[in-house]
């Protein structure tokens, strides 16, 4: 039999429908791949094989009865930021300890309702704070890609590093992820996978461990654009449990993929031509422009004048919201407790032992910018800049339908290479963070290889709630660029 783990999500769906294989066989193939590869890649922080096989068995029964859901029998990896009932959920932080949610996140519930099967919980940066997966309490997930002629371990990006690496290494058919400043798109770019960050409000945030509530959004990481369309359709939708989730129709994204980009107006923002952009990334961007032009789109130079202020404004807003959200970890209601001399001391000891360095840094920055006397100078100022960033895009939408940029300024780096300097790491999100600040949808599509033989991605940014156009344009890039499977399974 062919290797079932090499299938795309939509191929596996079609294969199950044709009864080429069973959901149990498909699940077992993935469990075997995880068993063989996880010790080298550190992608799953908690495989759940018993649950996987139980769900697959139910799927086989439903398929036999002709009652298959949209994702029936398809094995997925779940970022450990999504609460899963009865299954340990840690956000890859020590402070959540052995937390077993008594409820299910709405996004994962949507997936199970559609028949999907869970393989386990995936590694990520602690509380989704990071761009390399190195801040995880479980240690870094490893990128299945290597530089040509080198055995150095590369980062898969972050914060959804485990999700992206799992998809690239065929340790799941697709994965859930979350994106606060680039955490879906940047790891997708660094692993040759497709990452979709939907419009803010498209997917429910209920049951997702909160980082920065006005920026967080769930989305899929997949092997192809078609798979992203299939996953997003099921993940998205209004949820009364999240007051910021939007009550709007979710189109059948997959059905619209074939429509092409003839007449589509593509904007190319001059402010993204930053100093220090690697030559290969600049070249790839030109290539992307040419591909879309060849497919019938028109190309327009645009200006997004406040682009350079997005990242500094983000590093006020995100830590401020994080310091507030993470106040709940008090050693009383759930998770770790380190006993102190009194209640305050217990809080301080618990949070000192439970949070990692990057999380502490951000909670402290957030506490500082929100402290008495500084609120207007920092948080309010950043919220005003955010209005200007959104205004840049609103103006752009008068003349273009989508915006094309690189996803990252450079390809995957080695573990340890950037971990000494927080500011250097923050720059990883320079092209992705504007999208979160403006609440827009974005997609990263693999588009080429670096000089080192590692993947690079192009990012498309769309109008609010126009993921359909974004996916259609992403399909055009995938059609031109082809797919980028990992050349060698060195981890087995």
């Amino acid at each position, binding site marked *: 039999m062919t290797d079932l783990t090499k299938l795309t999500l939509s191929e596996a769906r079609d294969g199950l429908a044709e009864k080429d294989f069973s959901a149990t066989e498909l699940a077992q193939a993935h469990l075997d791949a995880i068993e063989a590869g996880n010790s080298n890649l550190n992608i799953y922080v908690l495989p759940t094989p018993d649950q996987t096989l139980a769900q697959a068995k139910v799927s086989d029964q439903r398929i036999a009865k002709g009652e298959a859901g949209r994702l029936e029998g398809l094995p997925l990896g779940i970022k450990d930021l999504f609460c899963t009932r009865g299954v340990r959920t840690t956000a890859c932080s020590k402070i959540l300890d052995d937390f077993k949610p008594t409820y299910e996140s709405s996004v994962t519930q949507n997936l199970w309702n559609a028949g999907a099967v869970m393989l386990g919980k995936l590694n990520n940066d602690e509380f989704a704070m990071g761009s390399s997966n190195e801040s995880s309490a479980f240690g870094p997930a490893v990128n299945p890609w290597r530089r040509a002629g080198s055995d150095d371990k590369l980062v898969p990006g972050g914060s959804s590093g485990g999700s992206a690496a799992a998809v690239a290494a065929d340790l799941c058919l697709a994965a859930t992820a979350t994106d606060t400043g680039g955490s879906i798109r940047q790891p997708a770019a660094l692993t040759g996978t497709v990452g979709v960050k939907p419009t803010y409000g498209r997917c429910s945030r209920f049951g997702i461990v909160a980082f920065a509530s*006005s920026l967080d959004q769930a989305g899929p990481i997949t092997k192809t654009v078609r798979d992203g369309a299939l996953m997003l359709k099921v993940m998205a939708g209004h949820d009364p449990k999240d007051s910021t989730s939007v*009550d709007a129709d979710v189109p059948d994204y997959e059905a619209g993929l074939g429509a092409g980009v003839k007449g589509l107006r593509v904007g190319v923002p001059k402010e993204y031509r930053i100093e220090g952009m690697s030559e290969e990334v600049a070249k790839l961007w030109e290539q992307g422009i040419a591909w879309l032009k060849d497919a019938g789109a028109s190309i327009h130079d645009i200006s997004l004048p406040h682009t350079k202020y997005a990242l500094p404004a983000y590093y006020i807003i995100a830590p401020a919201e994080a310091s507030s959200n993470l106040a709940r970890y008090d050693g009383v209601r759930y998770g770790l407790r380190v006993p102190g001399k009194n209640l305050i001391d*217990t809080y301080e000891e618990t949070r000192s032992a439970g949070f990692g360095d990057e999380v502490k840094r951000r909670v*402290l920055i957030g*506490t500082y910018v929100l402290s008495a006397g500084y609120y207007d100078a920092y948080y309010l100022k950043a919220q005003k800049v955010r209005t200007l960033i959104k205004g840049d895009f609103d103006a752009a939408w008068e003349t273009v339908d989508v915006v094309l940029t690189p996803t990252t300024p450079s390809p995957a780096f080695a573990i340890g290479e950037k971990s000494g300097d927080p500011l250097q790491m923050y720059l990883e999100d320079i092209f992705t963070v504007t999208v979160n600040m403006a*609440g827009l949808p974005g997609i990263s599509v693999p588009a080429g290889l670096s000089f080192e033989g590692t993947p690079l991605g192009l990012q498309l940014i769309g109008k609010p709630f126009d993921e359909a156009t974004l996916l259609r344009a992403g399909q055009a890039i995938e059609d031109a660029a082809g797919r980028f499977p990992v050349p060698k399974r060195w981890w087995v």
Partner: protein
Amino acid sequence: MHVDEATVRRIAHLARIKITDEEAAGLESELSAILDWVEQLDEVDTATVEPMIRVVPISLKQREDVVKDGEKADEIVANAPMSKDDFFVVPKVVE
């Protein structure tokens, strides 16, 4: 903006995170560097700009004021590091 060690300690206490002397010294330079970097926002004239308070222009929905959930104290304390009779147990706070 340079934050000195005393400020780092004050902020850490506000955030209820105990820090060692070594951590305090490191944080002093790291936080100062980050705050210096975000100061570039001062270049932007925001005198007449409204702050963004809503990402998507929707108004919050109202729901019926009815009880739909509850009677599950055991679930709520299920993950507590210490609990007794459906209460969270904390160190003594009143002498």
